[in-house]
């Protein structure tokens, strides 16, 4: 605590409060918090969604959404940023306080070349041109390849990591004293995340900036943070150095959050009765192609190439990979939401190749392979009650309404929801509860195989852990085969018996998860494992005593 207080604060927040309009789920988005950000340090603000961490950042930037106003004190260089006139705030914003956002594609202007967007920062703050030199040197600093060409590119032609680098270049253009980064790596792949975090750390050290990094991931905190403040319901419940908070958490909430962080630890594999395979896939291929214009060249993307696996009853097979690796495409081919170009998928007890069945022959088999979707908000029809959502398959297969009602009550109980929820609409439920409804819907048809496509990646960690437990428990009890798609190797380690690693449409490594994740044979798998944020702090059971 002493070192924390001794450092000269760059920004000191005292008693900052943001009132929410009447009728919101709580009175205050930010509830009289105190916070000091020192120059030359990285402060991580951690919390689950809705904890008020982004609101705090927006209050500092003077960018609160319209009806909301901040009260209290945000002291920056002798000025109180709360209630500062807009034109004065504008001079500070961008020049002395930079900000980067979660989704760089949304934060960049899609119809302007990235070089010009960086130039704008200089122009708006009255820095005389020409800017070419500065832009190129900034882009070089960000580790972007061929900056003199790249600055003429439009955002859509850059990769996610490159876009985030451009965003950081914009934020750092005028050498701000403080950089606010709002979930800067959440939308990125792990390997890119590692690079961006390293870039941020380096830029911070070179410039001696203060950084306030907002994140929900304790792995990122362990990777980059110096100090950490934990927020819950708009209050700061715990703060201190990263070593203190991660090593010896005091507040209950911090403890539960830390305990919920998925750890890359070997899972005690259950005894598997060696059944005949339930679902096998062989040499599955899918190529997307599109032609630009009538005579334009045909662009083809091989989304899935020669992928194959075997899934037994009661087993969980994880398919891990980065975005664009083809794992979701493969999942959708298995459930026949997409048509493969070639290949073979066989379900036990069915003579034919599933990929060759027509819609009519497929209809009776559909209920044997069900899916749990990623987005708990898009996967439930907002205009139908939970009963109608869960029972839709039962009713479609001619189960009488009364029987369906009993079955839905059973299913809701199975996923630990109150049976009375059946009459309510999805908007009455939180993300985790919605995902439970999605699981109940998948179970309604008593499937043999469940394909779960990133079922927990949209959820907060504490809820993630509970949904994973539920899935694992259901799978054990009902002896279902589960295909579990995820980008998070830690989650895969927690739930999967077998793991297949996908890269550019190919399965590069497959085997029992203890082998693949803890003794990888392929370089790509090693790279993925290496990129897990905060591995040092969370990996070994040796530090387990510190975290639990």
């Amino acid at each position, binding site marked *: 605590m002493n070192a924390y207080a001794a450092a000269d604060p760059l920004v000191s927040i005292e008693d900052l409060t943001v009132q929410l309009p009447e009728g919101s789920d709580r009175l205050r988005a930010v509830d009289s918090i105190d916070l000091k950000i020192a120059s030359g340090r990285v402060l991580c603000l951690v919390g689950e969604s809705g904890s008020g961490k982004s609101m705090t950042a927006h209050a500092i930037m003077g*960018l609160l959404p*319209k009806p909301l106003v901040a009260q209290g004190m945000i002291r920056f260089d002798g000025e109180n940023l709360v209630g500062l006139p*807009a034109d004065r705030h*504008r001079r500070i914003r961008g020049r002395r306080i930079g900000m980067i956002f979660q989704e760089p594609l949304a934060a960049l202007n899609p119809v302007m070349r990235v070089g010009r967007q960086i130039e704008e920062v200089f122009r708006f703050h009255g820095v005389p041109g020409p800017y070419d030199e500065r832009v190129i040197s900034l882009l070089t600093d960000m580790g972007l390849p061929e900056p003199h060409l790249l600055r003429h590119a439009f955002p859509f032609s850059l990769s996610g990591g490159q876009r985030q680098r451009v965003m950081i270049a914009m934020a750092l253009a005028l050498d701000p004293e403080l950089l606010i980064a709002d979930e800067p790596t959440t939308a990125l792949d792990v390997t890119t995340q590692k690079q961006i975090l390293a870039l941020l750390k380096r830029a911070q050290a070179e410039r001696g900036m203060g950084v306030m990094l907002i994140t929900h991931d304790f792995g990122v905190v362990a990777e980059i943070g110096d100090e950490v403040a934990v927020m819950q319901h708009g209050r700061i419940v715990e703060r201190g150095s990263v070593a203190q908070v991660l090593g010896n958490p005091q507040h209950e909430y911090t403890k539960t959050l830390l305990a919920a962080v998925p750890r890359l630890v070997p899972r005690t594999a259950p005894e598997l009765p060696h059944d005949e395979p339930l679902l096998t896939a062989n040499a599955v291929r899918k190529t997307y192609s599109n032609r630009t214009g009538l005579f334009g060249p045909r662009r083809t993307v091989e989304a899935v190439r020669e992928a194959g696996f075997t899934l037994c009853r009661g087993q969980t097979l994880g398919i891990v990979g980065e975005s664009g690796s083809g794992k979701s495409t493969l999942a959708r081919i298995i*459930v026949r*939401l997409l048509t493969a170009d070639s290949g073979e998928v066989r379900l036990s007890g069915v003579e034919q190749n599933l990929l060759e069945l027509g819609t009519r022959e497929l*209809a009776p088999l*559909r*209920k044997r*392979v*069900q*899916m749990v*979707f*990623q*987005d708990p908000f*898009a*996967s*439930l*029809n*907002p*205009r*139908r009650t939970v009963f109608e*959502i869960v029972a*839709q*398959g039962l009713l*479609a*297969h001619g189960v009488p309404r009364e029987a369906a009602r009993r079955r839905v009550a059973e299913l809701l109980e199975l996923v630990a929801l109150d049976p009375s929820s059946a009459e309510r609409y999805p908007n009455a439920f939180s993300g985790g509860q919605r995902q439970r409804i*999605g699981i109940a*819907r998948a179970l*309604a*048809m008593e499937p043999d195989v469940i394909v779960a496509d990133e079922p927990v990646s949209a959820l907060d960690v504490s809820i993630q852990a509970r949904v994973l437990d539920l899935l694992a428990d259901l799978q054990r009890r009902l002896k279902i085969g589960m295909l579990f798609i995820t980008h998070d190797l830690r989650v895969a380690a927690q739930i999967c018996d077998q793991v297949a690693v996908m890269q550019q449409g190919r399965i590069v490594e497959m085997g029992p998860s203890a082998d693949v994740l803890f003794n990888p044979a392929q370089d790509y798998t090693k790279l993925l494992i290496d990129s897990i944020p905060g591995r040092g702090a969370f990996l070994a059971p040796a530090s387990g005593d510190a975290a639990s």
Partner: protein
Amino acid sequence: MPFLKRFAENWGAVAGLIVLGLIVMMAITASVIVPVDPMATQGRPLLPPGREFPFGTDMLGRDVLAGVVHGARISLMIGLVSTVIAALIGITIGAIAGFFGGWVDDALVRLTEFFQTIPSFIFAILLVAIMTPGLASIVTAIAVVTWPPIARLARSEFMSLRRREFVEAAVLSGVSRTRIIIFEVLPNALSPLIVMSSLMIATAILTESALSFLGLGDPNRISWGYMIGAARTVFRQAWWLSVFPGLAIAITVLAINLVGEGLNDALNPHLKGRVRVET
């Protein structure tokens, strides 16, 4: 009900709804309020507004007030019926095109474009002229020229909705495609369609008036457009013949537009108002 509350927040929409309600009441109770035949001679021709005839009389001595009150029936009815028919055609075609995509979509979009490229009013005149003027032909003509925008809107809504995960979940549960279109997708696409249809009632009333003005209306029924059309020869001598039905059209169309905008704000609250860039 949050919907009613949001609607009530918009003063213009509430005023429009009240005015529209009064006009509808007037149309329903026309024969009670003004119990005279609007097509029959009631007094001397071309009497200016006075005590006996508040809105005056026309060239044949017919009561203009009776015409305005009774004419509301035809105007509202044509507006409503033709819009309902246009919406049914448009939503069906748009839903099929948007949901199935591929060559079905291509074919239906070409068909829609075919109708949309013909200037709609001239097309309507042509249709009425071919089918002999009458109530049914006017309704048909208006419906035929107004469905394409609805079809395009429905198509774009369905295209974005059919990719949603809840639709995929329904497919996996074995729900039939017809049921998915009607019960899963349509309810989510309905609000912008309702808003658009409500605004099209106003356009339909205007089109009917314009057709009647040109003498293509139903000659046996009084309507606002017919009254203005009949009055055009004596426009300079007898202003009251065209001003009162003209006002009736203007007020009705304005009221419907206000209600439509209110519906838009209430059904799509996130589109309400303008996006303001804070500086």
